[in-house]
């Protein structure tokens, strides 16, 4: 198991390298001078040259590349070209917010989506099923920022239940929860829509399996057939979808963070893009890649928890 994790991480290294190289190249082939961007249109030629020198932009490309890789590996990701703060530190500052949001949405999505999907499958082609199916399709059709704006309008502005700006003190648990609630509901409900759909169809497949008939032939009560015999098998495709959805979730969290004005990786990357903060951008892309590798690994490990046929060798 541990060996499996180690090997998986080792084989992820080329992917990481590929992404880093891609980011490095992308950042440098684009039109526009970062020094110019940072200093603005009015800056003098001398000031720009000085900044370029300081940022290492005048050195040959390959030197910059080697330097970039070297510092990335040693954990020195440089300083933000805009704020001058270390990239790693800036990321570390906002990462907990993003993790809070992601984990909360994941839990909410599973807690709402799985029972709803099971319920819908059990009432196949009845009114409940139709409503759930249309509702979940509507849910996953929502662009995250549109749903976020609607939630903001209803709960923060009209009902005044939650703060309009969700950037608060994370160390105070009550405030942390209050600031997390709406963004997490926003992402969690979209996630629940995906989970409901896959749980429903997976459950319908499983309910037609021979071993469900065996369980019925044993005279087990309905609830243990559904929740013990059927659901555990039905969860296997759900894990796949959750793993795939985390990519969408990361994208959606960018939009959510903007609407609710909540700190996080998303706000950081949008800011970095707007200001052509190359070092910050490189750091963020590496972090994103890393997150995706970890998520894929966790997804595969979760299969092992649910399905005894999965072997890690």
């Amino acid at each position, binding site marked *: 198991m541990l060996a499996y994790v180690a090997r998986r991480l080792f084989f992820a290294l080329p992917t990481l390298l590929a992404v880093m190289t891609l980011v490095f190249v992308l950042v440098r082939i684009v039109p526009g001078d970062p020094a110019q961007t940072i200093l603005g249109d009015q800056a003098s030629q001398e000031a720009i040259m000085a900044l370029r020198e300081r940022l290492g932009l005048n050195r040959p490309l390959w030197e910059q590349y080697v330097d970039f890789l070297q510092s990335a590996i040693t954990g020195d990701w440089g300083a933000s070209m805009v704020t001058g703060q270390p990239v790693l530190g800036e990321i570390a500052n906002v990462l907990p917010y993003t993790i809070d949001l992601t984990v909360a949405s994941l839990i909410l999505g599973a807690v709402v989506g799985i029972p709803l999907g099971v319920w819908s499958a059990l009432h196949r082609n009845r009114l409940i099923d139709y409503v759930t199916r249309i509702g979940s399709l509507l849910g996953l*059709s929502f662009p995250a920022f*549109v749903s976020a704006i609607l939630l903001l309008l209803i709960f923060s502005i009209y009902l005044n239940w939650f703060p309009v700006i969700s950037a608060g003190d994370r160390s105070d648990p009550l405030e942390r929860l209050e600031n997390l609630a709406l963004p997490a509901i926003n992402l969690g409900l979209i996630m629940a829509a995906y989970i409901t759909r896959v749980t429903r169809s997976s459950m319908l497949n499983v309910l037609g399996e021979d071993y469900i008939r065996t369980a019925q032939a044993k005279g087990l009560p309905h609830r243990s057939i559904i929740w013990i015999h059927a659901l555990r098998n039905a969860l296997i495709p759900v894990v796949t979808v959750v793993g795939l959805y985390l*990519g969408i979730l990361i*994208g959606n969290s960018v939009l959510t963070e903007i609407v609710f004005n909540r700190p996080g990786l998303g706000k950081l990357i949008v800011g970095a*893009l707007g200001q052509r903060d190359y070092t910050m951008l490189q750091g963020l892309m590496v972090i994103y890649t890393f997150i995706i590798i970890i998520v894929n690994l966790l997804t595969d490990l979760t299969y092992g928890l649910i399905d005894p046929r999965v072997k890690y060798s």
Partner: protein
Amino acid sequence: MTVAADPGAPPPLPAKTGRALLIAQALKAFRANRLSSVGVVIFVIVVVLALLAPVIAPHDPLEQNILSRLDGPSAEFWMGNDSYGRDIFSRLLYGARISLFIGVAAIGSAMIIGSAIGLYAGYRGGRVDAVIMQAMDVLLAFPALILGLVIVAMLGPSIQNLIIAISLTAIPPFARIARAPTIVVKERDFVEACRALGFGDLRIMVLHVLPNILSEILVMGSLWLATAIRVEASLSFIGLGVKPPTPTWGGMIREGFENILDTPWLSVFPGLAILLVVFSLNLIGDGLRDVIDPKTRTD
């Protein structure tokens, strides 16, 4: 089970071949699934409205009426006016053109490029295949929005660059669809026969693989078109979409969001428009998929 042997059951559908059967399947889908016909109706209405925008729109989408700035809906301006006093309804109609054009162009090219990549990878096999598909997996794993963000930010926001960025994120699924049947077809005897008759290998592949995957590609296309429209709107909302003053739905929401406390309808109308289009496409894709893959059948 004994019922499985029921000789009175209708014979299984023959393997999908060509366009005629595909259309028959699609028709059957819409008969069976009323929801997907609702999707088609909504989508067709949106397309017609977008195409006829210059005729229908009551105002010039760029015309500023200083006197009606941030006014609510009225008889003259059905959905109110934005902060420049422009007619929101007219901007919505014109915005539909941009959203649909970018979506269709991006997904259309992703379909073509993706299928070509999948065909090539499946056909070549071996290491070439492994490397290409590995690259596709990495691309697929990366959040589409983040990738789109970075590409548009690098290339600069323009219709063309938006199409490139969105198309790039949508290529991997089409490559996957095309690859699997290519590998199967490659092993069949008739490929040898066709070769003997002097057909080029790639031509054989294209002719035999495409009819098999056409239906699947269309399902995927409608679902990804929904995603493309959502991503385009998201990028515009972030400020990386088509430059103002050109009306786009995402851009309108962005502008409206600045006045969200006082004039929420500026954001709400275009928001509902996006939702409606994406929802209709998802309904269509869902209904089509039911027909093509009976396993996921929902009715």
